[in-house]
C-alpha cells in the first residue's frame, strides 16, 4: 500500500455526472484511483456502477463533470484512452462463430499487436483460464462459464494498463468464480483494475480500496479494513445460553442494547454501540444464566454495506 500512496493517478473523476432524462444515474462522483491499485465499486443494482464504467470507457458522454484515464481526458482524447484500457463487459460479448484464438486475435490486432507476440500472449491467457483444450472450438458451443472466462481474457490480450471489469464473475458457478478471482489476484499490483461486483467477501479479500455506490453517489470509500472499522463501534455478540428469561433480555435492553432471541436454538444476538463483551457476559452470569458459548462477531463488508445504504446487496 505504501508505494501506492506515492504513485500517480490512473483514473480520476471530478464531479462525474450522468442523467438519463429525469433519472440521475451517476451523481457527481469524485474518484482518484492510483496506478496499480485494485479498486472495487460495490452497490445495489441500479446504483450507477456500470454507467460510471461506461463513461470511463468513452462510450457514454458525461452530462457534467470530467474524467481522465492515465492523464487523458475521456471527452477530449477518447482514442488515447481506448488504446490504454481493457474492458470486460457485464454481458458476455464474444464473436460466436469464431474460436477462442480468433476472438483474442481480433482484439489484439485492432490494438496493433504483432502476430507473434499475440500468439504467445493468447496461449498464456488460454492456459491461465483453462481454455487451451477447447481453443479451436467455436465459442458459440461453450458453456456459460467458459464464455465468461474468454470474455475476461479478451480484455487482457493487448496487455492494457487499465482494466475495467464489470461484474466479472456474475452468474458463474463457485468453481469458475474462484478461478477468475484467483487470476485477478495474480494481476493485482501489475495493472490498475476497476471492478464492480456483487460478491462482497471477494471484494474484501482482493481490493486495495472499496467504494460503495448508492443512488449514483459514492457513499463510502476506503480500504476494506477502514470501512469495517468505521462501524466497529457497533459490536455484535452471539451467545448460546440456558435459563434465559424475559427479565434478562429486558435488562440488556435497558442497558441500550439491541437483543434478538431465537427460542428454538436458545441463541441470543446482542448488538449495540460500544458493546463490551466482558460486561455482557458478567451481567448474564449475575442473572444465573448458563453460557455455553459466546463470541464477538467481526463486522463484514456486508454489514458495512447494510449500515451505510440500508439495503441488502442481493435482492
Amino acid at each position, binding site marked *: 500500500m505504501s508505494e501506492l500512496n506515492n504513485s500517480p493517478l490512473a483514473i480520476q473523476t471530478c464531479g462525474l455526472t450522468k442523467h438519463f432524462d429525469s433519472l440521475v444515474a451517476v451523481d457527481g462522483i469524485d474518484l482518484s484511483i492510483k496506478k496499480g491499485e485494485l479498486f472495487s465499486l460495490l452497490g445495489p443494482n441500479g446504483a450507477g456502477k456500470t454507467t460510471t464504467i461506461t463513461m470511463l470507457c468513452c*462510450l457514454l458522454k458525461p452530462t457534467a463533470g470530467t474524467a481522465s484515464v492515465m492523464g487523458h481526458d475521456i471527452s477530449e482524447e477518447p482514442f488515447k484512452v481506448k488504446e490504454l484500457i481493457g474492458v470486460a463487459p457485464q454481458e458476455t460479448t464474444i464473436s460466436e462463430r469464431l474460436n477462442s484464438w480468433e476472438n483474442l486475435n481480433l482484439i489484439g490486432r485492432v490494438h496493433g499487436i504483432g502476430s507473434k507476440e499475440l500468439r504467445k500472449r493468447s496461449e498464456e491467457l488460454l492456459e491461465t483460464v483453462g481454455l487451451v483444450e477447447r481453443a479451436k472450438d467455436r465459442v458459440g458451443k461453450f458453456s456459460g462459464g467458459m464464455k465468461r472466462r474468454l470474455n475476461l481474457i479478451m480484455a487482457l490480450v493487448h496487455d492494457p494498463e487499465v482494466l475495467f471489469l464489470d461484474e466479472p464473475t456474475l452468474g458463474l458457478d463457485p468453481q469458475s468464480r474462484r478461478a477468475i478471482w484467483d487470476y485477478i489476484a495474480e494481476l493485482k499490483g501489475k495493472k490498475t483494475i476497476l471492478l464492480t461486483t456483487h460478491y462482497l467477501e471477494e471484494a474484501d479479500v482482493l481490493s486495495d480500496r472499496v467504494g460503495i455506490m448508492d443512488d449514483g453517489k459514492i457513499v463510502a470509500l476506503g480500504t476494506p479494513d477502514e470501512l469495517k472499522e468505521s462501524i466497529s463501534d457497533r459490536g455484535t455478540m452471539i451467545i448460546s445460553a440456558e435459563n434465559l428469561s424475559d427479565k434478562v433480555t429486558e435488562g440488556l435492553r435497558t442497558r441500550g442494547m439491541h437483543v434478538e432471541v431465537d427460542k428454538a436454538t436458545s441463541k441470543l444476538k446482542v448488538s449495540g454501540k460500544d458493546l463490551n463483551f466482558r460486561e455482557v457476559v458478567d451481567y448474564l452470569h449475575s442473572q444465573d444464566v448458563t453460557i455455553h458459548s459466546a463470541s464477538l462477531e467481526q463486522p463484514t463488508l456486508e454489514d458495512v454495506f447494510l449500515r451505510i445504504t440500508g439495503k441488502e446487496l442481493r435482492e
Partner: protein
Amino acid sequence: MRALEFCKRNLKETYRDPLSLGFLLGFPLVFMLLFGLAIGGETTPEYNIGVVDQDQTEISQAFVDEALAEAFEVTPYDDPLLALEDLKVGDLRAYITIPQGFGEQVSQKRRGGEGNIALDITYDESDIMVAQQVISIVDTITRSFAGIEVSVTLNTSPIHIESKITYMDFIAPGIIVFGILILIPTSARMMVRDKEKGFLGRLLTTPTRPWEFISGYSLCLFAVGIAQIIIFMVVAYFMGLDIVGSAGLVFLVFVLTALCCIGIGMIISSLTKTENQADPLSWIIAMPLAILSGCWFSLEMMPSWFQSIAYAFPFAHTIEASRSILIRGTGLEAVSSDFLFLVIWTVLVFLAGIILFRRSMVS
C-alpha cells in the same frame, strides 16, 4: 489494418453460418431462376400484334421481320380498319402503324443524323398492364433497331442487325437491381446484430475509428454483393440474356449500385438499435426504392413528376445504364452521366454513414 481484421471477422461470421450464407447466395439463384422460368426464358410472351406498314421500305420490312417478330406474334395488315376490327374482338393486343418515311428516318439516325422516329400504336385502354408492357417493348426494340451503329454498306441489307431482343434482355436489369436492393436489409441486419448483442460495444472500447468499422462491414458485404451479382448475371445469361455491350461495364454498374445499397443499409443500422427495428425500416425504404427504380413497372409509363423523383435516386439510372449497355451495346461515354450519378450517391451515402456512425459511437 483494423478494418481488414474486422472484415475478416465479419466474413468468418457470415460464411460459418450456413443459414445466412444459404440465404445470401441461394436467394439470388432462386430469385433469378423463378423470374426466368416465370417469363419463359428466351421465349417472349405471346402477344399478338398487328402491323400496318405504310412505309413499305426495306428498312421497315426488316424492322417488322427482324425486330418486332422477335418479340411478338406479328400479323401484317394492309388496311388499318381491319386491324382495328381485330383489336376490338380481342384477336390483337395492339397494332402498330409504321408511317411513311420511317425507313428514311431510321437511316438518317444511323448516319448520326437528328430527328425522331415515330410509330403509332393503337391498343385497348382497358388492358393496361399488357398495353404498357407492349409499348415498353416496342419502344426498346425501336430504339435498339435505330440506334445500333451499322456501317453504310450494310444499310441495304439490314438483316445483319443484331437486335434480337428477348424478353429476358428487357427484364433482366430490373430483376438484378431488385435483387441488389435486398442488400439494404442484409447490410442493416449484419451491423445492427452486433450492436444488439453488444459486440460492437466491446469493439468500441478499442481504438478502432468509425471509418474502420464502416470499411470492415462494407468490405465483407461488398464480397457478398459481388458474389450475388455474379450469380445473377450467370443465371440470366443461361436464361437467355444477350450481352451486346461490355459485360465488365455492366458488372461495374451493378457493383456501384450494390455499394450504394450497402451504404443505405449502414445508415439504417445507425438509426436503429435492434434487428426488430432495422428489418422493417429497411424494407420500408427498399420497396419504394424498387418501385422508383422502374424494376417492376417501366418509368416511361409514369407521370413526369414521378419520373423526376425516380431519377433523383440512383437505381433508375442503374437500370437505364445497364439496359443501354446490355441491349444497345453502348460504352462508358454513353452512360457516363448515369455512372457519375451512381458514384456521387455512393460517396454521399457512405459519408452520411460515417457521420451517423460517429454520432452513435458515444451516446
